[in-house]
């Protein structure tokens, strides 16, 4: 037998919950994950970590322990998901010693998570400017501080753990700047006790570290000669336009910046899954009440079908695990999903991205970092007839580089005024020699050996 019943792609909260649930129901499960250690973004940790840096660590240790009932294929990057009976996952393992391998499974659960969503501004490609998640990953995954003097900017509640993480790692944090002014009365944190406690913890930590928290402010430019030396912070109007005369500079060597998250949809697109609009109107994989996508024998969970945090990821993961094994889920789980979705929608509404960020751009601000395309060329391409990100790519090279528009895609879509259409047949770079060599023999399931 070389075919798994279920392959889960992603070992974050969603994937782990899906695997645990499916394995508990007797399925032969593989968890295929690019990372070396399980946990995804939320439970990113160091080997030997005791969990003191983490919320919900106990939930994680339970999920991690359940991995003994499945084949955890760590460090396996899926470069293409080929639909079929069975489905085939084309993977790459290793780095300097990279080699291809193949996983076959009758059913797939996509739990590929999300990456930081960035907005461009002058100087955003200076070394020392990191995504918020990138700064967090250095701390959670390596115990490293991103820098000595840090600023955190962007929008969303995620900025808080990033700031407290930076402070705990030894950085002096000169401020957290959230471009939105979330209305305290509709602030939905209160509807979720766990989150309210978490938020209170962050607030206390900000106080303890004397970190100023400013809403309605943004870093609108970064400056430095070859590396970040200072940022310009300005007060914004409701539409995120800087209010004249409010700009001031802060000396820093590190800026952690993030404006939410973008789901990783390439594998869903390979498999032919229809996309729909997520909580904030950007594309996500469409799923039904059972977390089934529109593609045969493919389910999706976690941020792949909507950015809503770790709890929603766990709940949808478990639901996908039930559905993929043909089982009825407990009603309590469905209720939790409904509540978490309401919460996610409320969070998306309270922390939107407003159009005024475009006024931060100068003509020479890079929109596409890979192909080094400045804002002026993007505008020229729009004037020449580009109507969506594909047209922008063809007429200006925006999104044509190595990252295939993952980093600039959101901004490019806003600038051209049409949603992103993620289409990346090759989700991870693959060497021509490995591609040429043909399909490798599929991995033999170990887990749930024949009974």
């Amino acid at each position, binding site marked *: 037998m070389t075919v798994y019943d279920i392959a889960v792609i992603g070992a974050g909260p969603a994937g782990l919950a899906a695997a645990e649930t499916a394995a508990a129901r007797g399925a032969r499960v593989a968890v295929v994950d690019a990372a070396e250690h399980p946990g995804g973004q939320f439970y990113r940790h160091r080997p030997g970590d005791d969990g003191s840096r983490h919320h919900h660590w106990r939930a994680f240790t339970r999920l991690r322990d359940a991995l003994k009932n499945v084949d955890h294929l760590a460090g396996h990057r899926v470069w293409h998901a080929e639909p079929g009976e069975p489905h085939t996952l084309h993977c790459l393992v290793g780095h300097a010693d990279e080699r291809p391998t193949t996983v076959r499974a009758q059913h797939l659960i996509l739990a590929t998570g999300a990456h930081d969503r960035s907005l461009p501004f002058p100087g955003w490609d200076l070394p020392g400017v990191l995504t918020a998640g990138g700064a967090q990953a250095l701390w959670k995954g390596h115990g490293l501080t991103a820098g000595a003097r840090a600023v955190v900017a962007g929008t969303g509640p995620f900025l808080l753990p990033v700031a407290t993480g930076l402070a705990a790692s030894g950085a002096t944090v000169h401020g957290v700047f959230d471009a939105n002014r979330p209305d305290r009365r509709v602030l939905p944190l209160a509807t979720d006790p766990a989150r309210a406690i978490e938020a209170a913890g962050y607030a206390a930590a900000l106080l303890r570290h004397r970190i100023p928290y400013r809403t309605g402010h943004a870093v609108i430019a970064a400056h430095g000669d070859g590396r970040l030396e200072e940022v310009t912070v300005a007060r914004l109007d409701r539409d995120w336009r800087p209010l004249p005369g409010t700009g001031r500079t802060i000396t820093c060597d590190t800026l952690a910046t993030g404006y939410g998250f973008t789901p990783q949809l390439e594998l869903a697109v390979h498999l032919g899954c229809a996309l729909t609009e997520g909580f904030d109107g950007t594309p996500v994989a469409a799923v039904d009440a059972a977390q089934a996508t529109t593609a045969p024998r493919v389910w999706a969970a976690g941020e792949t079908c909507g950015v809503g945090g770790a709890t929603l990821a766990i709940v949808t993961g478990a639901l996908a695990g039930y559905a993929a094994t043909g089982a009825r889920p407990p009603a309590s789980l469905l209720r939790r999903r409904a509540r978490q979705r309401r919460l996610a929608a409320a969070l998306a509404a309270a922390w939107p991205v407003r159009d005024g960020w475009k006024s931060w751009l100068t003509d020479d601000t890079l929109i596409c970092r890979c192909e080094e395309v400045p804002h002026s060329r993007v505008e020229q391409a729009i004037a020449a*007839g580009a109507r969506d990100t594909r047209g922008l790519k063809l*007429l200006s090279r925006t999104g044509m580089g190595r990252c295939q528009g993952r980093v600039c895609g959101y901004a490019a879509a806003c600038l051209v005024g049409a949603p992103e259409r993620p289409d990346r047949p090759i989700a991870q770079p693959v*060497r021509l020699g490995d591609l*040429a060599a043909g399909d490798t023999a599929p991995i033999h399931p170990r887990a749930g050996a024949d009974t």
Partner: protein
Amino acid sequence: MVKPLGGADVVVVGAGIVGAAVAYECATAGLTVAVVERDQVSGGTTGAGEGNLLVSDKEPGPELDLALLSLRRWREWAETLDTDIEYEPKGGLVVASTAAALASLTALAEGQRAAGVETAAVADPRTLEPHLRDGTAGAVHYPQDSQVMPSLAAAELLRRPGITVHTGLTLTGLTLTGGKITAAVTDAGTIPTGAVVNAAGTWAAEVAARCGSELPVAPRRGFVLVTEPLPRMIRHKVYSADYVANVAAGTAGLETSPVVEGTAAGPVLIGASRERVGFDKTVSVPVLRRLAAQAVELFPFLTDVQVMRAYRGFRPYTPDHLPIIGADETVGGLWHACGHEGAGVGLAAATGLLVAQGLTGGKPALDTAAFRPGRFGRPVEEAHA
């Protein structure tokens, strides 16, 4: 009721490279032009192919004559257009792996030379392409083979004064009076005009039908691999002699032949497969593997180079592999400029010229009988497969 848009002497359907070329040449001839494009500039196959302007892959005959005319026109355009369209006369190198292949390649080159193509036999192709594998039987160099960036070229051509581009507008039909066109009908209004040019590429059969005519144009899918950016390692467009046979083949089955070229921007492009599978966008891993294997075979150093992305497009295929250029034989004022399959970029310039000459009553620069829309008679059954 549909509202009238501004009128034009000619309405061109499709803002791909062919529509852009037709619009440009018509405007140059003094006509006012409205371009109707349902998606965006280069939103069709022009944005999903490559930009080779080839004479090397064409057998002597009407298509080669068209290609030679087109090549001259492209060179003039590159000199006169304001923006850089990445025109590069890099030359092609066709490599034969066996003595037999070399013999037929040499015979082909002789015929091409008689038709006006510059060719040069190359005993050791590695003098021109140092990273090519050794042990090939020989090659022919085609210095005229060139390249442009088709999307940029289309956008630039469409900027010519006299052309109005309507993106996001679909041609839905025609208004005829006494068997002659008086307006083009779109989903957002009518455009009064006496002439409509169907430059809808792979969708030209659909547009012909909306106009009350019939054409046998069908999709032929192609994949291209794009590597990470490299310093210039490959200078020509390099392909194997088998390519010519594949281009000419009409079978529905998969055909691949390595066509490898470096680009000014750095990535190496590896094309291209040919398959008749309708408009199926699903990625075919076996096709990608085949393209990779053939590229590595030609250039062994590519083994360690990463493929960064891949894309696919649908070529506008016709049963006899010749484009359709000329006046419709039933609908007065309807013209066709479509069905260029895998050579639409290369053939666009001459196509534009011929259509403009036809519409203004000028003498065509070459005999267009072979491209007549009416040549298929009743539509060929399999073309609709």
